[in-house]
């Protein structure tokens, strides 16, 4: 027994038109300041106006949103009284929107305790729409919420199946303005979701196909989208890839690349997609020694290698690194300019926090503390994980 959870998904050019037919009185758009300045909030407002829905905006979401931020957002929601919450942005804005929605409906809940084991009883006051403006996070279709504990410099993997959006609007025009670096970083996030969703121990028949398709779309379209941001065909395929990968891993699980990436992000402020994409090949190589089957199978299905076993898995890792190089992303921590002394000084925290990150539970091969430390060292130096 398991579940497959998904919002209604409206996708492709013109998907924003779906807003025109909504019924409601007030919407609270949860977003960040730059998206207001870029005019993306105005685009949504135009459609809300057509629906006769009054728009309010909470634009205080920062990258890697904190518990404090979502509490502030929830106060705004309680003040405005919306019947729609709209998460507009990348993963940070959409995750914040999910958490703000939960707190709006359930002010008694501690956001750091939003978990998949309790019944929340949402949708008494409002429903949730997600509109991604990047192509990678998949947060538009997942129930995961990542918030940051700013005091402990730690990302918290939270969420509940109930807090999946009611509607995801996946319109490529909303991601058309991404600069190349953001396109590259978020695209690697989508690839990491696809690979980890396919290879984690919680994968299912229903999630597998989505992950394979997403990985193929990323390999084929990410370099084109990075090289030429005006290539709307590539943009649209990447936008779809991110949603497919979100559905895939969101109904399975992520794995160690996310555990490591969360910690790199919270301690050294590395953008999420860049961090998980950098860690992914090392974690594939680590799994290749004792649990290569799913990785080799994915390599085979994608036409990367028919070698099978450890060789097949390592070929997949090599292909991920090749993609990173092609789109200008780092393949090791040194390339990000983080000093060795600073890295080594935080190594124990990196290992401890990665080990207790919620994403480790479904790893194909679970590392020991010592092995996790070696993985972080390999990721720093760029040495293949061969143990």
């Amino acid at each position, binding site marked *: 027994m398991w579940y497959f959870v998904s919002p209604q998904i409206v996708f492709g050019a013109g998907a924003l038109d779906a807003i025109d037919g909504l019924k409601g009185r007030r919407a609270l758009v949860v977003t960040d300041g730059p998206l207001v300045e870029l005019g993306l909030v105005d685009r949504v407002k135009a459609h809300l106006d057509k629906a006769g829905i009054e728009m309010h905006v909470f634009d205080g979401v920062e990258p890697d949103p904190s518990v404090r931020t979502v509490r502030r957002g929830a106060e705004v929601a309680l003040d405005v009284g919306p019947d729609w919450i709209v998460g507009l942005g990348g993963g940070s804005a959409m995750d914040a929107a999910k958490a703000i929605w939960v707190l709006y409906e359930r002010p008694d809940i501690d956001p750091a*305790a939003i978990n998949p*084991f*309790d019944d929340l009883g949402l949708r008494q006051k409002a429903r949730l729409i997600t509109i991604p403006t990047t192509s990678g996070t998949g947060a538009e279709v997942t129930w995961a919420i990542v918030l940051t504990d700013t005091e402990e410099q730690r990302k*918290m993997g*939270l969420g509940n199946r109930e807090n999946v959006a009611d509607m995801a609007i996946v319109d490529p025009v909303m991601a058309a303005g991404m600069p190349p670096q953001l396109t590259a970083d978020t695209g690697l996030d989508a690839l990491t979701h696809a690979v980890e969703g396919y290879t984690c*121990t919680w994968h299912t028949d229903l999630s597998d196909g989505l992950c394979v398709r997403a990985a193929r779309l990323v390999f084929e379209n990410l370099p084109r989208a990075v090289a030429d941001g005006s290539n709307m065909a590539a943009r649209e395929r990447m936008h779809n890839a991110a949603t497919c990968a979100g559905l895939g891993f969101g109904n399975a699980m992520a794995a160690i690349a996310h555990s490591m990436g969360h910690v790199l992000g919270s301690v050294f402020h590395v953008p999420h997609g860049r961090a998980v994409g950098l860690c992914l090949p090392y974690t594939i190589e680590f799994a290749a020694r004792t649990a290569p089957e799913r990785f080799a199978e994915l390599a085979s299905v994608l036409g990367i290698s028919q070698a099978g076993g450890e060789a097949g898995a390592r070929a997949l890792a090599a292909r991920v690194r090749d993609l990173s190089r092609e789109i200008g992303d780092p393949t090791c921590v040194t390339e990000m300019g983080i000093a060795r002394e600073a890295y080594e000084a935080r190594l124990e925290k990196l290992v*401890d926090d990665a080990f*207790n990150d919620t994403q480790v539970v*479904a790893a194909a091969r679970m590392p020991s*503390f010592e092995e996790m430390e070696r993985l972080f060292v390999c990721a720093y130096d760029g040495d293949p994980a061969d143990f």
Partner: protein
Amino acid sequence: MALKFPSDEWIKELGQLLNASASYERSAKNWEGNFIFVCEPDETYDSAAYLFLGLYHGKSTGAAMLESEDEREAQFVIRATFSAWRQVIEGKLDPIQGMMMRKLKLKGDMKMILRYVAAAKEIVSCCALIPTDFGS
């Protein structure tokens, strides 16, 4: 020799295995909170059982089978049927997935639990190391 589940011997063995686990000690180094595992009757087991496991800063501070749930103070209580516990111990049911499917019901500070995923996984790993007799 296989130890009967649920029993006083079984939960004491789990406590000893945890105390021998360097991995558990590190992953739970700041953990504070005792558990009671409630084994609820089902078609294969006809009475309730209560297993207490004291846990503090990476060590087990005590383990015992109780007469009732109220006999000892515990910050966390996990309830499941005998069959569900058996699946967890035999490695056929991931306990996190079990909780998401409501086959295992956890009561306690969720914020705390979510911070110690690796420790929880280590406890389950130790359960799987115990030669267990589930009866006929």
